[in-house]
């Protein structure tokens, strides 16, 4: 990043290459929308580029990247939430829509043991289980599981104390366990 700050365009290209898949993966798992994920990932890089002149290496660079990502995801989630409000309402009127999502997930494969589940089907269950978490829980889980970030680093990225991250991850994993219980017996 210091090379980017000094105007090295090649360094910026290297930075994009080393983080693009991680950010696109993070946003895709957050929103299940590949187009939005690429837009958000690109916006993260543009924000980094804009802020390069004032960059000071006071903290881990990756933490700063994921802090920007978290803020973008949070803002995007708010506007997306408003847009989706009508969609959720229309889903509620369907025959299964009024029941909790967890029960729907369990029902869909209630008669199937986990070994018989097609790989893609299991993946879909996990995706749906992840989508039952709130935004902060989901972000914390993804940063921890896929980025291997410590509680302290997640706390820095999400502006939370390590203790709060511990509780957040604990609740998230307990929620996931409840939703996916039949697949881990």
């Amino acid at each position: 990043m210091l090379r980017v700050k000094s105007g090295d365009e090649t360094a910026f290209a290297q930075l994009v290459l080393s983080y693009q898949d991680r950010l696109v993966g993070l946003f895709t798992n957050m929103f299940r929308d590949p187009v939005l994920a690429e837009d958000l990932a690109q916006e993260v890089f543009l924000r980094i580029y804009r802020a390069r002149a004032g960059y000071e290496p006071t903290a881990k660079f990756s933490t700063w990247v994921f802090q920007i990502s978290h803020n973008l995801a949070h803002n995007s989630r708010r506007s997306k939430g408003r847009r989706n409000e009508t969609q959720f309402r229309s889903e509620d009127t369907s025959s299964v829509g009024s029941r909790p999502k967890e029960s729907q997930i369990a029902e869909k494969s209630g008669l199937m043991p986990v070994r018989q589940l097609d790989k893609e089907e299991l993946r879909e269950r996990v995706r749906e289980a992840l989508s039952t978490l709130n935004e902060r829980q989901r972000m914390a889980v993804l940063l921890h599981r896929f980025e291997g970030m410590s509680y302290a680093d997640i706390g820095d990225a999400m502006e939370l104390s390590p203790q709060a991250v511990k509780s957040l991850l604990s609740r998230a994993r307990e929620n996931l366990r409840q939703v996916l219980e039949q697949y881990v017996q």
Partner: protein
Amino acid sequence: MSKLQRLSAEDRDNLVAYLDGELDESGTRRIEGVLGQSSVARTDVEQLARTYDLLDELETPRASENFTERTIASAKLEQIKPSLAQHPWFVFLRRVSPIGGWAIVIMVAAAIGFSITRLAVPQEDDVLLENYPVIKELDVYSETGNYEFLDRLSREQELLDQMSREAHRESQ
């Protein structure tokens, strides 16, 4: 009753932190003690670990082929033409605009207030000028002691003028 409800909230948090290797030495010893004594806690830890492993089933999406080029091109475009919000004068304007806005509002309000006051409230000077003929002869009128007469007299401009002329002549 769920199995986890038999543990305190802190123990539940610590079980997860133990799995993640985030507990300090004393915390680790304590949880290992709990795990040694409680088969429920052991089952919970196993289930939590297996649930977390299921996340590996999620796909790992990759950026599209031209993502890097598009991103670098967008960044270069910004370098050529920085966004409006990046200009120092725009930043300055954005910073001072609330103060400037209030200053303009106050100035406009003051101007309106001044105009209204000037038009609606008669000025003392205007009244004095208007009643100058009467004021000029006030001593004479006071001697008569009849203010009703004075009041009526003050409205008779012609008579006042005449009286004024006569008084002037007499004094000469």
